[in-house]
């Protein structure tokens, strides 16, 4: 309930709650099925890594998590543009939830990334891996999104500033990757090869798990949107009842 006062209640209509929840169940089932299939492929079909063995399997979790988080951040920026264009506060809510959710995915990606670094290179953190380093910088930037938002009292202003910040950060993501890559590749060889170098079984398992993660992101996004909008509507109805 505390969350609800940060968003304009004008978006909390019945129809918006309905549109948020549309497809939620479908996404949830699809995510569960795809991720189960991905798990089976990863553990029983994809070949063992010659050096790292079983421990390399975390790759199938870490990389899709990172990609889902990054896509979610960018999507949050696109939704923010949509908010500034339409001034429809439901787009603000969409953008907020996308970034919030991607931040959680980002935490998971960083933790799994550290575990993977430990298994692959024997250290918890690897500065020579530009993707990981870029991801950390992006994560730090988005971690300020929520504190910034909630340091503004007026909900409309909050939505606008958050949208602008989301757009700036969205533009930052690719440029930052480029800069960090440029800074690293001059000195060190790339640690990770591209997906093209993987054997076919690995590749299929990886893409399955990536699709599963994308579906999971969508399902959780829709779930949180629905939950937020329902609780806002509830708060509004309660307020009307009291007055």
């Amino acid at each position, binding site marked *: 309930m505390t969350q609800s006062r940060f968003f304009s209640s004008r978006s909390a209509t019945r129809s918006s709650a309905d549109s948020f929840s549309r497809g939620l169940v479908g996404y949830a089932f699809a995510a569960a099925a795809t991720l189960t299939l991905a798990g089976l492929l990863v553990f029983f079909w994809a070949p063992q890594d010659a050096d790292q063995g079983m421990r390399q399997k975390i790759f199938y979790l870490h990389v899709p998590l990172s990609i889902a988080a990054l896509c979610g951040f960018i999507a949050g920026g696109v939704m923010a543009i949509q908010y*500034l264009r339409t001034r429809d506060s439901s787009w603000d809510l969409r953008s907020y939830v996308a970034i919030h959710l991607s931040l959680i995915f980002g935490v998971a990606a960083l933790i799994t990334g550290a575990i993977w670094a430990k298994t692959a290179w024997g250290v918890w953190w690897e500065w020579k891996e530009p993707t990981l380093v870029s991801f950390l*910088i*992006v994560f*730090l*930037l988005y971690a*300020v999104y929520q*504190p*910034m938002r909630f*340091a*503004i*009292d*007026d909900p*409309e*202003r909050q939505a*606008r*500033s958050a*949208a*602008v*910040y989301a*757009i*700036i950060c969205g*533009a*930052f993501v690719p*440029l*930052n990757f*480029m*800069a*960090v890559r*440029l*800074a690293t590749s*001059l000195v060190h060889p790339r640690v990770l090869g591209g997906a093209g170098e993987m054997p076919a079984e690995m590749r299929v398992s990886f893409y399955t798990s990536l699709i599963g993660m994308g579906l999971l992101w969508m399902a959780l996004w829709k779930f949180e949107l629905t939950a937020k909008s329902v609780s806002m509507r509830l708060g509004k109805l309660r307020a009307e009842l009291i007055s």
Partner: protein
Amino acid sequence: MNESKETPGLFAAAGAILRKDLRLELRTMETLTTAAIFTVATFVVFHFAFDRYEMSGDIAAGVFWVTVLFAAVLAINRLLSNERAQGGYEALLLAPIDRNAILFAKFAFLFVTLTLLEIFALLAFALLLLGPALSTEMLPLAPVLLLANIGIAAIGTLISALATDTNARELLVPLMSLPLLTPLLIGAARASTPLMSLVPHTEHLDRWLGLMALYDSVFALLAFAVFEYVIED
């Protein structure tokens, strides 16, 4: 009644605001003195932290740019909030000017402040810590400073506009600035490393200048596109 009057053009308005800001800064010297003192204090701290009398190469470039970056954060913190502290912010919003005039003026003001600050910081650095003496071989630092300042000024103006209406400005400005300025720091520090080595030379200079130029143009355009949304209402 209003026969002689037209609304001022974008650049006329920006020029008026910039002149006002420079005049205020010359009178109070608030931003420049605090940033200059901060710069020297940071060099002292770095001297003890590394226990060095002299620095060159990547360490020198790193120390110089980290110091400049933190000093820039101080300036960003004051950029628009100073307008409020002085009391005239709403008069700007009431005036019949293109709101982007505020962006241009604040961008230019920050750019000028940073340039003056860096000239001072470079002299102080050369005096206190820098190994190689200042020489004409270091002239390629000029475009590095120029491109860094354009980027910091564009991003700084946006951040100060975003943060000035929050109730946690002092905390948010550095938190937002540091990641957003990291690519610029990468470019500036890497480009400066060979220039600050014991035998100053250039290496991959074009690559780093290119990176910074790309970064600058993206964020300058972005600032232009979104600034009005940040300050409206």
